[in-house]
């Protein structure tokens, strides 16, 4: 009876689910091919490594955003939070002074803890204030950004000790067995993220919360804790992203991290996570972050597009990439 109908239906779903998971990677490949056609320099190892390395910050932050979004939330404050964490970390390093691994370690601890604390603030206001996360994190976005500007007194916060800088540099510029450290970092973060989201009960609870809050509550999921923790994880990810951001240029400015929130959310959505919650794709998110960086790279490498129109082409590519993904998913 419905047997046939049911079977085709289910297998179709199966297929389309797989497509949904695969399609960001396909989009990545298509873009890479397009890049290679536009400029042969695109495929040089150094260019590819540059691009992937650069995507590390957004990728790591977006892994955190995958938790928040698949749990049904949203965090617009990550860009400002990144700037604040970077600023405070540098100030701490400057204040500690002595170049040495222990100074660095302490600075890093401060960065990650501050990230976690900022995330906790977001999480607590969202859960206990019961305000739309959009508004809460828009508010904290303004707060964090202002605090950086204030700390920098309008200028730039720079690592003063050049010895310490040299010591720290390899965390961005170094490599292990030829693989740049930031790439290793984001792979590790994504792997841990995937592990937490897919293999722990906390991760299961996040998805349950994003699917249907009532069901989660009636099933005894500690929804307040879970929701707050997603924001804390987001904050920790921001902290980790900053650990590899600071050694790059050694400074934080009032523009550090500007619009990173939009990039992170875009990476998450391109990666196949649903904005309405209940579905998270950590690896897709990483692919999404690389796609964004790739599009920007192709824009600079190509010679067709006036610098005025780069944004337009970038916008169009992202829309087209999503259109293609969708049609792949529906196609068969």
């Amino acid at each position, binding site marked *: 009876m419905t047997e046939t109908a049911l079977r085709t239906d289910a297998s179709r779903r199966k297929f389309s689910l797989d497509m949904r998971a695969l399609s960001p990677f396909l989009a990545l490949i298509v873009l890479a091919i397009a890049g290679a056609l536009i*400029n042969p*320099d*695109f495929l*040089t190892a*150094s*260019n590819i490594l*540059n691009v992937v390395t*650069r995507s590390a910050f957004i990728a790591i932050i977006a892994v955190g955003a995958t938790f928040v979004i698949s749990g049904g939330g949203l965090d617009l404050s990550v860009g400002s939070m990144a700037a604040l964490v970077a600023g405070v970390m540098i100030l701490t390093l400057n204040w500690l002074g002595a170049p040495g691994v222990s100074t660095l370690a302490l600075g890093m601890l401060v960065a990650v803890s501050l990230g976690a604390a900022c995330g906790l603030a977001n999480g607590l206001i969202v859960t206990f204030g019961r305000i739309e996360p959009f508004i809460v994190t828009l508010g904290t976005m303004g707060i964090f950004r202002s605090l950086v*500007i204030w700390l*920098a*007194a*309008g*200028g*730039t916060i*720079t690592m003063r000790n050049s010895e310490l800088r040299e010591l720290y540099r390899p965390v961005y*510029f170094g490599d292990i067995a030829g693989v740049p450290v930031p790439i290793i970092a984001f792979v590790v973060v994504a792997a841990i993220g995937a592990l937490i989201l897919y293999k722990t009960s906390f991760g299961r609870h996040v998805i349950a919360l994003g699917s249907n809050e009532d069901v989660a509550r009636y099933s005894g999921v500690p929804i307040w804790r879970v929701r707050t923790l997603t924001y804390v994880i987001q904050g920790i990810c921001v902290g980790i992203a900053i650990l590899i951001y600071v050694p*790059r*240029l050694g*400074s934080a*400015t*009032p*523009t*550090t991290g*500007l619009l990173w929130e939009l990039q992170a959310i875009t990476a998450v959505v391109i990666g196949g996570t649903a904005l309405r919650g209940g579905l998270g794709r950590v690896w897709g998110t990483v692919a999404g972050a690389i796609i964004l960086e790739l599009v*920007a*790279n192709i824009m*600079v*490498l190509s010679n067709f597009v006036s*610098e*005025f129109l*780069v944004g337009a082409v970038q916008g169009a590519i992202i829309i087209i990439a999503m259109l293609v993904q969708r049609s792949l998913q529906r196609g068969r």
Partner: protein
Amino acid sequence: QQKSVTIGVSIPAATHGWTGGVVYHAQETAKALEKAYPGLKVVVKTSPDGASQANALDDLSAQKIDALVVLPFNSDELTNPVNEVKKRGTFITVVDRGLKDPSIQDIYVAGNNPEFGRVAGKYFVDNLKQGNVVIFRGIPTVIDEERVTNFEKALQGSGVKVIDKQYANWNRDDAFRVMQDYLSKHPKIDAVWASDDDMALGVMEAIRQAKRDDVKFVLGGAGMKDIVKRVMDGDKMTPANVSYPPAMISTAMYVTAGQFFANAPMRGTYVINAELITKDNAKNHYFPNSPF
């Protein structure tokens, strides 16, 4: 007898290094002036874009200010709103970016953006003679447009060729990214016009990483203290800079206060020209205590 005077200062918000410097100097000067002249009140307000600055001007005049020091976000947009303030009899000092109608201002402390581009261009012609140059643009604004057009004009007829230009938003990270891509794309880049010191820092980091020795130098702009220091120290990569001191806001505030508290009325134009900073004169441009 004690005069009571209020000066309103309207400037762009600290969205990047240079504007950050402007805000810093404005606040410091406000404190210094209030101390120096009892009875003087200085109100500093920042705005993130042209429309908000127009709003802030409304709000400042609602507080009955005697003088306005304004660094307009944008000449075209702010001409009218400043004129509205003027119409209430407020004394007007314009800083950096001139208004469309110069008759509105009582004092003009001019930064000169076309000159900024020209000076930089001339430096490339004189020192590079020929070769390939890449340009970093700032945020799409009139300032940026004026600088880049005049830079390119200055190169005309020389052997120096612009092979690429992209926006990097006066932002270090964006400049780093764009420079990495330039380096992938162009096998030979002789010099870089970063047009801003924040961007120059990002650019140099990318060059260092790529270990490319074809790039002979990077010219930034605006006289950030770290960069000026390097010029002073004879750093090969940063042999020069073009000044564009955010402290021009202080000058403007001082002369405006002088209008009320010194005996001679102040009028006219004070040009703070874009100057080439080299090893020889770097000392005069080095302010280690400035945040910028």
